[in-house]
């Protein structure tokens, strides 16, 4: 851990750190213990509250709703990447008549909350006889919003490359499209990969907004299960289980992307610290969270 802020600790500081470590462990354990105790005390850990986990039908439904979440994510992610690339191309264009509209679209869709967008598609558009399924509304919202964010990311990635890259490519006689697709984009993608991953994690999490318009994804099912009187309305147990599922899904996604990237890098002679990379993923665009 290279640290800017601190000197290498001497014996006194090391002792102090050990004391602080003990205090820290006690504090964290205390908080977790307190929460656990209160939940236990209010009956959240009683077998009845967790019984639902044992039913085959519920397990199947749970898997199905995870599937629905992943489906919305997969379709949304692909569409958002494509839409983002198109918008980025528009924003990077030399023609004002392309740049203007692309910038406008990006600004609009970045400024409107995703929830309002989904409402707009699902509840608003039927007023002019445009009707769509919940799935379409969710995916459309995810695509437009994340596409706009990704457009900015792609653009920033291309802009961050040294000018010489493009100049050299032009000097070799490449055309604009070639410069973009063969030289700039591949490098930009690599530079921005952490940001792109974190945006995809955001997209995955945002599928959860689908429950508000009754798209039957994981959170929708969680809400449904949590309200079941026959299991004592296990809201807290369900929240815990579903929370774990979401965290695992997001971490898997991050891990997969980082692994892919590492495999990519192995060919190049750039040595990077793998673990630190994972840690640093998603910094600037942690920004665009929802």
């Amino acid at each position, binding site marked *: 851990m290279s640290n800017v802020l601190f000197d290498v600790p001497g014996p006194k500081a090391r002792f102090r750190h050990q004391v*602080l470590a003990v205090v*820290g462990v006690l504090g964290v354990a205390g908080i977790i213990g307190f929460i656990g105790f209160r939940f236990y005390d209010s009956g*959240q850990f009683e077998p009845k509250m967790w019984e639902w986990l044992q039913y085959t039908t519920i397990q199947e439904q749970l898997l199905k709703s995870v599937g629905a979440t992943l489906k919305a994510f997969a379709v949304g992610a692909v569409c958002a990447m494509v839409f983002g690339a198109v918008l980025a191309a528009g924003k990077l264009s030399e023609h004002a008549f392309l740049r203007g509209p692309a910038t406008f679209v990006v600004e609009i869709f970045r400024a409107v909350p995703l*929830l309002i967008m989904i409402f707009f598609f699902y509840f608003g558009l039927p007023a002019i006889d445009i009707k769509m399924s919940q799935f379409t509304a969710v995916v459309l919202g995810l695509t437009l919003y994340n596409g706009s964010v990704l457009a900015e990311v792609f653009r920033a990635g291309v802009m961050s490359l040294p000018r010489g890259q493009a100049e050299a490519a032009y000097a070799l006689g490449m055309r604009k499209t070639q410069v973009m697709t063969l030289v700039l984009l591949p490098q930009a993608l690599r530079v921005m990969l952490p940001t792109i991953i974190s945006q995809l994690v955001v997209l995955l999490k945002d599928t*959860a907004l689908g429950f508000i318009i009754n798209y039957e994804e994981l959170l929708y099912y969680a809400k449904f299960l949590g309200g079941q009187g026959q299991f004592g309305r296990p809201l807290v147990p369900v929240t815990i289980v579903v929370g774990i599922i979401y*965290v695992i899904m*997001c971490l898997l996604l991050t891990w997969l992307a980082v692994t892919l990237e590492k495999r990519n890098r192995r060919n190049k002679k750039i040595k990077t610290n793998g673990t630190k990379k994972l840690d640093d993923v998603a*910094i600037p665009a*942690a920004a665009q969270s929802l």
Partner: protein
Amino acid sequence: MSLLSTYSGLFLSAFATTLKLFALSAVGSLLLGTFLAMLRVSPVPVFRAAGATYVTLVRNTPLTLVFFFFTFAYPLLQIVKIDYETGAVVALTMYTSAFICEVVRSGINTVPVGQAEASRALGLTFTQMLGSVVLPQAMRSVVPPLVSTLIALLKNTTVSAGFSVGDAGAIQASLSEDGANMLVGLSWVAFFFILLVMPLTFLQRSLEKRWSVAR
């Protein structure tokens, strides 16, 4: 226009609530986020681990689930009874601070190690070093992403509509029950959000531009 005048009261109070939620949780998450960032760069491994765990957990959980927790699980803890608006502020703060923590931490990490070493060599104390050398430099790379995190926060306040807070996200439910034209209503909501977000975006752009030259 007629829809807007009919529902002017609803729109006003809803957006006032949105702004209030935004202001309170912005301050809250800046404080908590900076504190978490301090944990994450601290020399004590336990603190680092605690900070990292918190950030990993919260960042990979949908905001709605955090709200769920505060509406349904938190009351069981029987600490302090909080109303829904406070609950929303706490949920938004806890969620956003994880992102702010990462922004601040990565900002600190962009400052070359030599800077701190040099200031220690000059005999600056820890506070002096942090205050006059490291943080001012870190600020440059922190502020622009920080502003976009805040924009995200502003938009995220809409989620609280599902949890008994009458903010801008709840306008839809009221309009729907009245059978008002949702297309028009929701367009207005979107328009007001664009109005609110624009100044923040401009601020971010101009800061980014100014500081990227200085680099």
